[in-house]
């Protein structure tokens, strides 16, 4: 496991990748990312948000079966949970959808930005990060 929690983020490379993405943006249905998001401010405490960058360690990458476990875990939480593949400059996808998850085409070594927002965001991120 080579996870790094959000408070150590932004890492230099990932931030640069994010900035490139923001400038050139894939457009279309791309959703905004907040890779540098910090714990929610007080005026938004009913919708806490949390994010983490995880590195794919499986030599086969993020495949169908490991994706199944991610979706099963994500589905246990109310929070809206997304993932973006920082290594491919992808836009964020819904982590509760197996077909969107495999769209990330995440290979070993790729960095994924997981982001959750909702009442149980923190618990969701904690549970999910252990799966990568």
């Amino acid at each position, binding site marked *: 496991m080579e996870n790094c929690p959000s408070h150590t983020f932004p890492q230099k490379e990932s931030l640069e990748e994010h900035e490139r993405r923001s400038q050139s943006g894939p457009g279309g249905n791309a959703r905004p990312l907040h890779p540098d998001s910090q714990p929610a401010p007080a005026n938004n405490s009913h919708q806490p948000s949390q994010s983490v960058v995880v590195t794919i360690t499986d030599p086969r990458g993020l495949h169908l079966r490991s994706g199944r476990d991610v979706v*099963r875990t994500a*589905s246990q939480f109310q929070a809206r949970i997304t993932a973006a593949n920082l290594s491919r400059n992808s836009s964020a996808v819904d982590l509760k959808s197996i*077909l969107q998850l495999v769209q990330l085409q995440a290979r070993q070594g790729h960095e994924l930005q997981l982001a959750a927002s909702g009442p149980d965001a923190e618990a969701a991120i904690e549970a999910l990060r252990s799966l990568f």
Partner: protein
Amino acid sequence: MIGLVIVSHSAKLAEGVRELAVQMAGDEVGISQAGGLPDDAQALGTDAFKILSAIEEVWCEDGVLLLMDVGSSVMSAEIALEMLPEQQRRKCLLSNAPLVEGAIVAALHAGLGEPLQTVNAVAEAALSTPKLANTG
């Protein structure tokens, strides 16, 4: 927990798709297959009676979702539903989802205990989920 039926012209394809679906579902999801013609396992085609047996194999009160490949799979599945008693027929649903993607998604969500209409809706969302999106 709903049941799933995989319908294909090819018995081998039906078996393979079922294999994928079983891997995505928990142990509690009943998944059956109806592929090829009854008299000759190698012959390509779909058969309403074979589909009917597959429905009965996984029948449960929560309902049964049928996933078909193309063309006459749909017709044969319709005929199979017409042969069911009304009480069972109204708990069966033909999905518009693509076979492989739909079976993977439906199996996973059936395993999460989601109801028939919800499972079908997420499976049919596969129609608008390209494989290669979001990279670039």
